[in-house]
């Protein structure tokens, strides 16, 4: 308010200011009450709350079968897997997570046959991109739905996917 204004001007401006001020206060309180009503609605309607309490729900928790948690190699009951040691997964992996160590088996006919010795998998490097699974020509590896991967030492994250003493399944080339 400038000093040059006559008294009524100053008073009138002040009056309008006061009116506007009170109006703003009321509209603000009203808009906040509208928001509070919504909060109060959820406060009294417990059924609509969808929060799940992890880890208390570990038993009932269900992850979809496509969830990418970790690369595993399924074995059947005779301890046989489907991996031929073709190294397609190793080539497809963008960050060197998989290392296929091959050896040569002697078949009953006396021929040399390539087979895996170890399929080393570094979980700490894996980005769960699914490229190795798609690249594998014999469906030897798949994604598991595990997700609690924390361990005390990172060396525990380096895994060998094929079980000790396992063999390749008959009929997989």
């Amino acid at each position, binding site marked *: 308010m400038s000093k040059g204004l006559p008294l009524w001007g100053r008073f009138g401006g002040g009056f309008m200011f006061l009116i506007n001020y009170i109006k*703003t206060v009321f*509209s*603000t309180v009203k*808009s*906040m009450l*509208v*928001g509070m*009503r*919504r*909060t109060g609605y959820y406060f009294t309607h417990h059924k609509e709350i*969808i929060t799940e309490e992890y880890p208390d729900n570990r038993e009932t928790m269900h*992850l*979809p079968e*496509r*969830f*990418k948690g970790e690369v595993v190699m399924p074995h059947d009951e005779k301890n046989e897997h489907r991996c031929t040691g073709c190294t397609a997964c190793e080539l*497809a*992996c*963008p960050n060197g997570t998989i290392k296929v160590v091959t050896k040569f088996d002697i078949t009953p006919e006396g021929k040399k046959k390539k087979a895996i010795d170890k399929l080393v998998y570094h979980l700490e490097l894996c*980005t*769960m*991109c*699914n*490229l190795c699974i*798609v*690249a594998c020509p014999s469906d030897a590896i798949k*994604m598991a739905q595990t997700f609690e991967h924390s361990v005390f030492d990172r060396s525990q994250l380096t895994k060998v996917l094929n079980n000790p003493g396992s063999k390749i399944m008959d009929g997989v080339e």
Partner: protein
Amino acid sequence: MYRETTIVADENQNLAAKEAGDFIINVGPQHPATHGVLHLVITLNGETIKKVEPHLGFIHRSIEKMCESLTYRQFIYVTSRMDYLSSHINNHACALCVEKGMQVEIPGRAKVIRILMDELTRIASHELWLGAMAMDLGAFTPFFHTFRERELINDIMEETCGARLTMNYIVPGGVMQDIHPNFQKKVKDFVKQFTSKIGEMDEIVTGNTIFQNRMKGVGILSKEDAVSFGCTGPAARGSGVSCDTRKIFPYEGYEKLQFDEILENGCDSFARYMIRIREMQQSIRIIEQLIDNIPEGDFQAKTKAVIKLPKGEFYQRVETARGQFGVFIVSEGGTTPYRIKFRSPGFSNLSALDHMARGSKLGDLVAMMGTLDLVIPDIDR
């Protein structure tokens, strides 16, 4: 220690920091309001901002250089780690660019799945932004409301793509797996819930007078400035710049769909806020058009196991949740790119922050940054 840098060409603007009574504070790199490792050096006169200098590089992973040693199938997963809230759309841009080089025609089913995924991602990204921005301004409740809806999208993604954030689902030639049998039903449920609950946001946030007073007239970015800073996405459309890549350079069949480009002429934070709210409704419109019309057929075109691009340069741009994202591939004819350049929307949008913030109060800076929707890994790459 902060050293003064000479980023701004005008000498006087840099000298501003030397005046007596000026105060320099650092916001970040570890600051909850920057949503990432962004370091802002702010010159203050009292509470008024004189200059904002973003210092980048805290999450620089040299993604462009990394891509040079990865094959055309492998490099796509890295782009999910750039703008992690629009990871599908980043993957989409890369896949389109590689397909441009390979000259393959992808099946109609894959196209529709891709658009559906893009739009779901856009909604999820805007939902997260809405919650996070309301939290920046001190309202904590909206965060949970928006995350409730976003959770449904995450569940859909988890079921079909196997991941919630870094999907790597869109690959050259189509998509990696077919959609899950529950996909259509779940998306319809989501659309129903979203349309019935979006009004809550108006009650809690948009209609709130305190919120409006903090947004209206704050962070003015004129149309000319938005163009000259290279802003794209909601940040530019809030200033009336028509820049929706889905409209002006349609890709993947967006030209056949009915949706509006949202424009606001407010040029302030509130306009940018409203753009995103209305954009979510447009995305819902696109989803409603497509969800019952997914064509039958293959989800992936037949491509060679090892992709080789012919010698040349390929560029593809898409509209992410933050603006225009571009992929530029220079190929020498081999299996890996010779050079890759990503044009990320966040970087250009951030460059306008200094201009917007000058002369306003420090408390408003958070609101301005919130409406720019900065994702720091996208800026730094």
